[in-house]
């Protein structure tokens, strides 16, 4: 599998570290709603198909990427920096 890193270009999957489901919302840090925290920490969206997930390009530019990928075919449909501010002006090398 190749993941097209917005900074480094397409790179082998072995350079990346999977960081899981990107549809989780972290509760307000001060929140004491254990159910909400439990949902955030333990529950995952795990569809057979299109999945929104984080990957870190750990063996490259080290940024976290927001990747849309099909879990049935492994086809990657979209990639962007997780840190939205970095997406401005990003391109392939």
């Amino acid at each position, binding site marked *: *599998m*190749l993941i097209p890193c917005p900074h480094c270009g*397409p790179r*082998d*999957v072995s350079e990346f*570290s999977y*960081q899981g489901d*990107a549809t989780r919302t*972290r*509760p307000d*840090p*001060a*929140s*004491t709603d*254990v159910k909400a*925290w*439990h949902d*955030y*920490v*333990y529950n995952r969206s795990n569809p057979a198909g299109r999945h929104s997930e*984080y990957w*870190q390009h*750990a063996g490259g530019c*080290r*940024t*976290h990427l927001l990747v849309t990928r099909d879990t049935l*075919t*492994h086809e*990657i449909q979209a990639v962007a*920096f*997780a*840190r*939205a*501010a970095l997406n401005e002006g990003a391109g392939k090398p």
Partner: protein
Amino acid sequence: MSARRTSTGGLIDRSRTVRFTFDGKTYTGCAGDTLASALLANGITLVGRSFKYHRPRGVYTAGVDEPNALVTVFKDGVREPNIPATQIELYEGLEAESQNRFPSLDYDISALNQLAGPLFGAGFYYKTFMGPVVGPIKGTRFWMVCEHFIRRAAGLGRAGYDKDPVRYERMNAFCDVLVLGAGPAGLMAAEAAAKGGRRVILAEQEPRAGGAANWSGETIDGKPAAGWAKTMAERLAAMDNVRLLTRTTVWGYYDGNNLAALERVGDHLAARPPGAPRHRHWSIRAEKVVLATGAFERPIVFPGNDRPGVMLAGAAERYANQFGVVPGEKVAVFTNNDSAYRAAAALKKAGGAVIAIIDVRPEISAAARGLAEEAGVVPLLGHAVVGTAGKRLTKIMVQRFDAATGRLSGDVRPVEADCLAVSGGWSPAIHLASQAGRNPAWDGRLNAFLPPEPTQEWTGAGAFTGAMTTAEALSTGRDAGLAAASKKASRAKLPEVAAPALEVNPAPVFEIKADGKAFVDLQNDVTADDVRLAHREGFVSVEHLKRYTTLGMATDQGKTSNVPGLAIMADARGLPIPDVGTTRFRPPFSPVSIGSLAAEKHQHFKPDRLTPIHDWHVERGARMMEVGLWHRPMIYGDPGETVEQAYIREAAAVRASVGIVDVSTLGKIAVKGPDAAEFLDRVYTNMFSTLAVGKARYGLMLREDGIAFDDGTTWRLGEHDFLMTTTTANAGNVMQHLEYFLDVVWPDLRVHLTSVTDQWAGAAVGGPNARKMLEACVTRSKVDNETLPFMGIVHGEIAGAPVMICRLSFSGELAYEVYCGAGHGTHVWEALMEAGEPFGITPYGMEALGTLRIEKGHVTGAEIDGRTTARDLYLDWMLSKKKPFIGSALMDREGLIDKNRIRLVGVVSLDGQPLGGGAHIVEKGSLEDLGESIGHITAFCYSPALSKYIGLALVKGGKARHGTRAFVSDALRKRFGPVEIVSHHFFDPEGSRMHG
């Protein structure tokens, strides 16, 4: 020249004789031979024994699909089993041996298995060997005794235990177009893509390009096809943008058009050049792929179809045309299609006597008739082979056959033959195309599976697509090459092929049903009756068939047996073949050396990670140990000292005067930016924004789930500039954890993280004389109590090198961590040693470091083990109530504050014996009657400060047990003894020494 070797023709070099041995006997062959062709040239047709029945077997194919002729090769001082003789290129001195026979290939006692044949039907072992229900061999005993013998009978070749001494390598490659197969289609595709300006890799599993052109006997552009292919290959190899890889099998088609290939760089050489790998594993990323992998011939299933001398017709043709070998003196041909007629003509031309052509069809094409005439026989149409005889084939039985009904009739006639060339039609080699998961499509005319719709960026060409003629191969090859290069189709004239106009579609005859064992999977000894038995017992889905009978699970992975097996099942079920389905092809396409996949890891599994002071430790005689990838001193043993004596001496020296330990491996992260302090407040359980510049603080991190994650000190070097330290083991995890939060959770924070673990060499000096010795060597800064109080930081110099010194203590002594640039590490370390000399400074290793920390009750990874909470470790004083932090929301869940949790305590051995890491704690019991575990020991040592064996433990109830008795139970190593549970702060609990 042997009798079977033709005097001219073929692509071998008769002037270069090559000597080799088979089963210890020396033979000769020619350069260009395979072991299989050389054995055949020497008249050797019996080369192996089958898996289950130990039936004699001979060379069956001429390629990677060989099910029978597996041998063990001896090279480089090691043995390599299960190599098809058809894939071994002859080299001077080649040593090969037959397999799975005892005492010899000719007389194998296990062949007696055949007598009990009906007992050994598919799946027989599921129905028996359960043994008695009661008595001494109940349970699994009886089966295990039987299994012992079954295991010895099973298996093919024998593997060695000696380390493979050779080199394997990995190679990454990128190209625009990867062409698989350098037959006519692949050559055309590669040329078209290369002329289109693309970077092309052309991979061919055989030693020479050309594919079927090397043995088809056809003519292309007026030249023999083999010559045309050679010229094409040379032209391609000369182009800058083409890499031609021969002896290279592309075996895996992975996601993202990443393909894996095995290049056999040195197998064909008697000696490899220096530095050359034996195998090279290629990982190829291709924009586009052209699959021109050709087709495999398949057999017809009939009784006795496994006898040595029976082989595929295409293979016989190839032996004659490419290798100049006639595989028999009296050759018969059995076919359901025209292609075998070409083989018959070729065998005749090579000097063989073609005795008969038996064809199941009532009618054949004019071209086939012409070839039969060339072969000098009148084909027996509407006939079938119903049996064979001879240990090595001596004759075949022939009977009238109705292809429409499958019925046999009339007399059984014997025909004398020592070679039977069989063709049951051709199956496109769709393996790679199918690896991605889509099912192939059945073609009712070719009676074969065609490739599925592409799931990746590939196009097909040639026989792979079902285009079986050479002319079609050339045109589809060029088209595919142009398409892969995104070029328009060409109207230019294609090379002209002169070939007989054979009918490509076979008759749909897969099996001749007559009495006797008819083999579907030759290597696994799966018979047509086994398939029918599976059907009878309900194992009718193709996967059940495969698993129940082991059909297609042998080293050839069903290349010859897949379609016949399905056809027999389809017949039994009364369904069309595609309704029975096909098994999904899995990587690898053909077996791949494990060494090649390990590549450089074969000789060195993981890189060594060395501290800046590594060489000093080694020279000083330190015994090193692995900590993750790091090498760290365990002890600096004096001659004759045990590990225990050494660490006790080292630890005692620290408490008595001063010691020094290399702490360069601690994770170090530069945390910088306007929001750095805020960030640290969020990730640590305690406050860092209140830390003064020039001071350090001990910090604890939790995971989101409230479990303790890591600890360490963080130093505030500037208002917006922190140096975080982590445990050695967790450095990478902490870095990733922090980066995740900055990128994903708090992208608004302006903080940069940089790993500076390797930037700094660290030496911890501790002991009552630590300050005095620093005073002796540190310049440009004072180190007295005012300038450098506990947790203070100063910048100075030691022996001219800039250093940063923080006064903190892991040992519980007056201690300092001295950091300097890693390149100055040894220099500074030596200066510290010199300054410490008057105080008898002692370098100490991990064991003494552990001893000192156990005496102090400091926790490390053994206690922060991913399951413990801050409370479990009595670190709740570090949990700030003034702010939320990572983990604060979930750390108080009922399960995490349960009173029965195991919590940190100290234990003291009461019998003067060591405690043992990993031992458990019980309230009562004995080695004979183990009590219930209430916890376990995480670390132990002999404490020189307390003069007894002590340990840290996680025990149910924790503090509540202080002062109580219990037992240490290391039942695994037969140790049981009394302990007292005490506070984990064994030594100097007030900390007066480190504050002193």
